[in-house]
């Protein structure tokens, strides 16, 4: 007799083997369905948005508090004091700037940092708070406290402290996931400011610890690109707006094919201490048709 069949007077129970089988099928079907599409995104994302996100805001405050305590224990006191003072200063400045006009922020922080085109200043931006970070150790992404309700959408670019952080890859009504440019497998088309040469910037888990990114496909036969050159997003990228600061060239080496060069870039943003980011609400205009 099959173990699933209910016999008289016995409570119906599903053997664990069958349960495992059913759940495995559900997983596989989900994977197949969601690999290329986003059919479940709207209901699922809004459901977790109402259940998880409100709690997370409070809990991550506690996390930040704990981290500060841990920092106190691990670093030299004098350094910590200075660090704390500077961070407080940064926080208050950030806060102040967010409350005041976004234009003020751009002028003080970014204009000093970059000599960029006019369009850069005219992007519309919205401030958002980082509420929690990736649950694993493999990729680098984080969740911010604004979503479709605040007018955000997938593929919007995110910056912090004047440098590019990443772009929104998943969104719910009150949260959005930002995938960092340092995340393994993320590619950004970049451009060296001084010489207008294009290159491909890609995140690599091996380099994250040292705050570096890989670059490749740099065609520079005259050797114009040197250490310290500024790298920004290029205008041929289809997801990233042009002229956002990525970082500075760290090392350059010739590829085996002797035609292109590759190397590393040190990132402009401090990804370990992100708490407030700016989302650029302008999307890059592109037509696939």
């Amino acid at each position, binding site marked *: 007799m099959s173990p699933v069949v209910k016999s008289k007077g016995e409570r119906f129970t599903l053997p*664990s083997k069958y349960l495992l089988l059913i759940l495995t099928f559900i997983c596989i079907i*989900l994977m197949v369905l969601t690999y290329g599409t986003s059919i479940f995104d709207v209901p699922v994302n809004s459901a977790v948005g109402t259940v*998880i996100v409100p709690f997370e805001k409070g*809990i991550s405050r506690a996390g930040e508090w704990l981290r500060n305590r841990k920092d106190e224990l691990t670093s030299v006191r004098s350094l910590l004091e200075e660090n704390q003072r500077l961070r407080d200063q940064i926080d208050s400045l950030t806060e102040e700037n967010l409350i005041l006009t976004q234009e003020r922020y751009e002028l003080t922080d970014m204009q000093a940092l970059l000599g960029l085109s006019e369009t850069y200043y005219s992007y519309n931006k919205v401030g958002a708070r980082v509420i929690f970070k990736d649950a694993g150790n493999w990729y680098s992404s984080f969740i911010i406290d604004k979503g479709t309700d605040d007018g955000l959408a997938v593929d919007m670019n995110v910056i912090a402290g004047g440098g590019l952080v990443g772009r929104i890859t998943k969104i719910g009504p009150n949260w959005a996931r930002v995938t960092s440019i340092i995340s393994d497998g993320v590619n950004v088309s970049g451009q060296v400011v001084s010489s207008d040469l294009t290159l491909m910037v890609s995140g690599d*888990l*091996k380099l994250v610890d040292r705050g570096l990114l890989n670059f490749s496909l740099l065609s520079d036969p005259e050797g114009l690109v040197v250490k310290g050159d500024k790298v920004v997003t290029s205008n041929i990228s289809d997801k990233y707006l042009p002229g956002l600061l990525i970082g500075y060239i760290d090392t350059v080496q010739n590829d085996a094919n002797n035609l292109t060069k590759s190397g590393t870039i040190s990132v402009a943003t401090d990804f370990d201490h992100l708490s407030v980011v700016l989302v650029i609400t302008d999307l890059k205009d592109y037509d696939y048709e």
Partner: protein
Amino acid sequence: MIQRILIAISIPFFFLLQTGVFTYLKLGNCIPNLMVLIACIYGFFYGEKFGCVVGFFCGLLMDIFFGNMLGLNALIIMLIGYINGGFSELFYAEDIRLPMILLTLSDATYGLMYYISTFLMRGRLSIGFYMTKVILPEIFYTILVSLVIYPIFLAIDTLFRNLKLRKELEKQDV
């Protein structure tokens, strides 16, 4: 019933703990994997069914927020929970060695499976690096956290077992 509700609440609770608190308390640049941890513990305590259902929802939560597709983490952690549940007959709650060994193996399995499915597939071949920089620190930290969490689970479980026992005894008396 109360116990089941507690288990259901504990899943988002540990997810919040992992993403909201431990991401700020990195050790060796890694955070512990509490999702695998609770799937394992519920597996040991309550058997295969609980292990696999808890694992499924834990993984799904990770997928919704951080995965590129739904179901990958859910599948891996569910299998881990199920296999650990198979050991529930074998283990004595007071003996901490078996759960720790199983947890180590489970987290290693999770790391390897995740590496194979998302990194190896993209041609990231240097497994030595990922082993020493991601998988091993994660296991170490998870074990460290479990040494704190496990006794708490044990205490709660003992409490419920005693309550149940008392109820049964009362029934027998009547």
